[in-house]
């Protein structure tokens, strides 16, 4: 990053720009916040999620995500295994926004569970790697953010994310500055830097979503990751996701 900044400075000097604006974090943290003192992680307990969709609704409202069924910072999937059938049945009507209709005959189900999904804030994020202008970046506290003032809307990051976590904020979306730029879950960066939990964690009635700080020895999330068997999505991608799932079925991707 340093060499890049130097490069920018040289370009700026050559081009004769008096002042050269470099990016301001899209979700500016509160003053006095020190991102060297935190390292966040997220835990999803698939044994608890009931598919009520409150998290999806809270996220859309909190983060001005368009209400249409093509844009999600977080969503919930239903995985159902039917007796005598190979492979799972998966659905996520409107991302689970309105909950899940009882589609299947109870007697035919051998197992079923809900899987909340969100950006994994990968430690080795392919989205950051591919962004040609550095608009997608990883902060020191482990959060992957998009600078909406800088993103050129090329959508390379959307292609590179193995988890479908990103979408292009539509031209008619409510938040004007974000239009036609890449958008995705920020773990509610504006909240967590002020000491609050992400909106989805806050509203989950059963505690299926947990958010914490790995630098805090007393933190619940840190203890879960240390003590319990947890799994990440698509580990073979080598992205080192920071959303950990409790009791994840290996089929889930």
């Amino acid at each position, binding site marked *: 990053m340093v060499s*890049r900044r130097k490069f*920018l400075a040289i370009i700026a000097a050559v081009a004769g720009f008096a002042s050269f604006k470099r990016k301001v974090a899209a979700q500016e943290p509160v003053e006095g916040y020190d991102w060297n003192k935190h390292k966040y992680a997220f835990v999803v307990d698939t044994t608890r999620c009931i598919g009520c969709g409150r998290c999806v609704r809270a996220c859309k409202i909190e983060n001005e995500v368009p209400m249409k069924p093509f844009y999600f910072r977080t969503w919930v999937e239903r995985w159902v295994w039917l007796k005598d059938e190979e492979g799972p049945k998966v659905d996520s009507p409107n991302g689970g926004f309105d909950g899940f209709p009882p589609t299947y005959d109870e007697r035919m189900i051998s197992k079923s569970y809900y899987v909340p999904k969100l950006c994994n804030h990968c430690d080795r994020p392919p989205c950051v790697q591919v962004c040609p202008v550095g608009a997608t970046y990883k902060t020191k506290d482990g959060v992957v953010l998009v600078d909406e003032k800088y993103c050129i809307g090329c959508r390379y990051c959307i*292609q590179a994310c193995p988890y*479908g976590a990103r979408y292009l904020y539509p031209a008619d979306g409510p938040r004007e500055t974000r239009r036609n730029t890449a958008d995705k879950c920020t773990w509610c960066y504006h909240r967590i830097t002020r000491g609050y939990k992400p909106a989805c964690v806050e509203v989950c009635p059963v505690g299926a979503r947990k958010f914490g700080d790995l630098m805090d020895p007393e933190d619940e999330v840190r203890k879960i990751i240390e003590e319990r068997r947890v799994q990440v999505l698509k580990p073979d991608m080598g992205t080192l996701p920071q959303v950990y799932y409790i009791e994840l079925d290996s089929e889930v991707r």
Partner: protein
Amino acid sequence: MSEILWQVLQHVQGYIYPNEVEVNWSVLIALYPYITGLVAGAFIVASLERIFKVEAVKPTYRLALLTALAFLLCAPLPLVAHLGHPERALEIMMTPHLSSAMAGFGFVYAWYLMAVLLIELYFDYRKDIVMWSQEVGGIKGFIYKILTLGDYNISDEAVKADNKIVNIVTVIGLPSAAFLHGYVGFIFGSVKANHWWSSPLMPIIFLFSAMVSGIALVLLIYIVSSYIRGVELDRACTDTLANYLLYSYLLDLSLEFMELAHLFYTQEEGIDAIRVLITDKLFWTFIVIQVFLGTLVPIFLLIIARTGIFKFNVRKWIYIFVTTLTLIGVFAMRWNVVIGGQLISKTYLGYTTYIMPLFGPESLSLALAIWILPFIILAVLIKLLPPWEHPHEWEKTEAE
């Protein structure tokens, strides 16, 4: 855009991530590797004459260079038109994030345009330009005067020196052209999240299909422009180009076959989804257009033409037919890579659909407009820098 997404949503099959309804890289992004491929291919045709001394294709040497330039000038258009924020497009060169494959585009492009193509054209045409600037008056003459860049020395030594420079630039240019397009293939091949793209063979496959399309384009333009000018086709040139088309086709075919064989033999995760993608979602564009009409039929016809059982007059029509099929087939290849790769969900459990709008941003009409533009530019370039009327020494002696 949203209205179309509602329609698309009706056609989604199986389970896809909710954000995957929208096909983010549209027809314009399919057009982008197509155009850069034509540039690389046309340049390689030109290099055949220069580096490999394939005398027979000399009549198309300059035509190929101009074609490369005309298409290169339009290569960034689909990219910029596709950006969510085109006004920030230059950031990619001002503040490149160097770990990104895409960040290099501006530099690769600029290098190829400025350091290779323009220099080669300038030194190749310099003598003619100086002569034209003295013969022609008016606006055209004025343009020639500018194009001389103030150097009016056309002594034998100077022209010899020009020639040397052109030779050197061509030697640099050939790997540059290969890099320009191989690099475009890398942009796709390096996306590990997408099984249909993620392949180290991608840059090479892109390169060979580029050669195929470039040779076909130059050949077709040569035949058509000769017809328009009312001059006889140079038989040796036409047949030689057709032969090169056949060779590159064979290489291209074997590479693509290896790629598919690898996919199906290794049977990695997602192979079932890819099978459905090929046999169902891309049946028409892949099996019918790309493989059958765009590859097998042209190869078959080229082999027949090569046997010499047809007279040149018939062969000419075969070539017209083959090159047209080739251009369609290679576009289908770009389409199948770019659009096809996005139809298949990263869940491997479902598919979305691509509905191309007729008008507006990222629409069929815009893609067509961008596709036609290089031909218009080429026509202007040919008017300004006729690739044939002031032949080089060698052409004169050959004509005599």
